[in-house]
């Protein structure tokens, strides 16, 4: 029954985001446009992009879209006075929270994967137009699977962090202001951590690590990151569940 309830909530959230009544397909067009925009930089980088593990970083950027969708989930419901009626329903706490988290994660994950698909198509089109060379190019299997896995976990983390900070904000506006720090943390850490480590760790250790990793051990590094992300996801979700106290969620 819990899974059914989660699906009920997730389905409605996705539908409302992608196909708001009166503005048909507006949400879908927005997601497509955003994914297209995010696919541009990889297209500029050309065929080399498809062989590079750096694609993992680019694939995670589109997840920033959660900053615009997460504010609707709790703060928006509260602001539009739909939240109290939802809380008065028979839905269990976990279904409301997990359903909304699932919707926002799937949305951001979808946009991330779509941006990479657009990049692949773009790179192939340019290649064929330029050289007339046949054969479609795609990510090697290990990079492709790593993209699928890491974007999912990062989207979950970004969504969970967004929910955690916006759970008790009264308006969507305040929620989007509060979104800045968690998003910087979620998406900034992968960007800044290598720079910080570069300063702290002795050079020969760094070189050794890079040599070891690029010697066919990239997937080990990806899996280690995935485990860390999974732990962070679980932590953030537990935090959100702990903050979700039904009898304290109505703030006027």
């Amino acid at each position: 029954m819990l899974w059914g309830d989660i699906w009920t909530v997730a389905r409605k959230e996705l539908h409302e985001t992608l196909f708001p009544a009166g503005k048909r397909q507006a949400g879908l067009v927005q997601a497509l446009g955003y994914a297209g925009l995010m696919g541009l930089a990889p297209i500029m980088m050309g065929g080399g992009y498809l062989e590079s593990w750096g694609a993992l970083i680019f694939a995670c950027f589109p997840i920033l879209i959660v900053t615009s969708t997460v504010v609707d989930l709790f703060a928006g419901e509260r602001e539009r006075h739909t939240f109290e009626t939802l809380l008065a329903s028979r839905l269990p706490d976990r279904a409301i929270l997990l359903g909304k988290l699932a919707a926002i994660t799937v949305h951001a994950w979808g946009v991330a994967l779509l941006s990479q698909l657009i990049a692949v198509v773009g790179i192939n089109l340019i290649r064929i137009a330029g050289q007339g060379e046949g054969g479609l190019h795609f990510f090697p299997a290990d990079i492709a699977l790593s993209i699928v896995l890491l974007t999912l976990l990062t989207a979950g983390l970004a969504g969970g962090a967004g929910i955690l900070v916006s759970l008790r904000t009264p308006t969507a506006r305040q929620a989007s202001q509060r979104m800045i720090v968690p998003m910087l943390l979620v998406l900034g850490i992968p960007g800044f951590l290598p720079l910080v480590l570069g300063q702290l760790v002795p050079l020969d250790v760094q070189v050794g690590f890079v040599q070891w990793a690029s010697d066919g051990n990239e997937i080990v590094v990806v899996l280690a990151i995935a485990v860390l992300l999974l732990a962070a996801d679980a932590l953030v979700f537990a935090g959100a569940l702990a903050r979700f106290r039904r009898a304290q969620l109505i703030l006027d």
Partner: protein
Amino acid sequence: MSEIIIRTENLSREFGAVRAVDQLSFEVPAGVVFGFLGPNGSGKTTTIRLLLGLLEPSAGRAEIFGFDTRTQADRIRERCGALLEHHGLYERMSAEANLDYYGRINHLPGAERQARIKELLDHLGLWERRKEGIGGWSKGMKQKLAVARALLHRPALLFLDEPTSGFDPVAAVELRRDLARMVEQEGVTVFLTTHNLAEAEKLCGQAAVIREGRLLAVGDTDELRARSAGPRAEIRGRGFDTAALQARPEVVAVHYNGGDTIRLDLRPGAEVAPLVSWMVGAGAQIEEVRRVQNSLEDFFLSLMEASDVVG
């Protein structure tokens, strides 16, 4: 004696220094429309929130279907339908999608859900407009849809916070009729707040009146009505001697603004006919005499006046 559905014991809730609900104790039996009446800010909405487990009581307790609102609210909410202070509809979704969502939440299977949505929207005259986003709908239309959402899964207990606000007179009569039928045929219990006391009088078998969070009266509506001051007479004519009328032992108060109608509040048990003979004898010319039935509104107003004096 029928089963008790809602029971509160010294239920209280404070917001800072404000005592929104103050030691409420009352019972609501199964199969009645229970009117929860009180002026603005008297704690009606807060009480509904407490009963649904959406707020924690500061003191006291409440039990619905035998479940404690503090610890077993999930079990309570499963059995309830609610139309709260705000209609709570998603304005970026269509009317049908709004009902469909709550049908799924309440575990109505697909075919039954669709049939029920059609039945309700047809009944409300909104079926043709089911695909529209409701953002542009009128207040009353949204309110009707919100009522439909509360009724969708045929709950055993309905909380309705001012359900007819925004309704036209015909729609209000229809909702009253629907609720009365559900109570009679399906044994549903309705907990309802309203500022329309004429409506409460027609609809509610029992009622409670609260003010500043405190219970002032509770009981059968008929009995409450009878409890208000004595009968009243409305007399049309000319030549009234208000000073002499005021001095009569059976008259409590005289309301006269110089027109052709005078209103008299009488002591309980007072007879109108002898008073009229006396008035004619004193030179009044009388065209029409009407003995006025006490209304729930009279009772409500007299309670408010009395509690003004006390509090």
